[in-house]
């Protein structure tokens, strides 16, 4: 399955786009997604150690299983306030 991953802040600039497309297979977890991004988008690699992943409006863990159509986003350390 193909997933569009939302990017924000410095990740968006590093990728040159607000989304990237990643090919995943059924049963893959969030941790597998991070490794796939590291492999396919090496320019993002050094930032991936510090990101959290969101599914819709919730943060998820590395063990969360990804399903088709999931609205996933990479969340760099935040700086609001």
């Amino acid at each position: 399955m193909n997933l569009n991953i939302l990017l924000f802040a410095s990740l968006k600039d590093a990728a040159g786009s607000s989304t990237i497309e990643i090919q995943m297979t059924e049963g893959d977890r969030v941790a597998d997604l991070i490794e796939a991004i590291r492999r396919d988008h090496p320019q993002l690699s050094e930032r991936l150690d510090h990101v959290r992943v969101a599914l819709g409006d919730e943060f998820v863990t590395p063990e969360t299983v990804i399903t088709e159509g999931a609205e996933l986003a990479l969340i760099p350390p935040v700086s609001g306030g």
Partner: protein
Amino acid sequence: MSPESYSASLTRDPISTEEASRWLQDSTCGAIHLFCGVVRDLNREQTVTRIEYHSHEPLALKSLEKIVAGLVESGATKAIAIHRLGMLEVGETSILLGVSLPHRKRGFELLERGMLEIKSEVAVWKHEHYTDSPPEWIEGS
């Protein structure tokens, strides 16, 4: 805890402290605390001209709601948080956090706790603009 006891929002319009203060009023409360975070003109020895606030809005709003609901669970009678998005000039309010409760002491503690949670959990990022160099993303640690 009723839904009317807390309020969280993201806005591209200027934040009104007067409206927030009115919303926090309650006949049982002797204290209304408001904190406003404001865009300042200096950061890391660079002159800041303005800051653009970006967000993952559904995620940010959910986190903000959890934070103000938590403040009410911990003793606030009412709690409100409003985060501004878009381009802000120096002097504009970027965040308002407010609580009301019967007495003041707990209110100071809850405001500080709420701001720490906002700064670590809410999916908002500053894109700072400077007089002498290109804009930079500010990301927490």
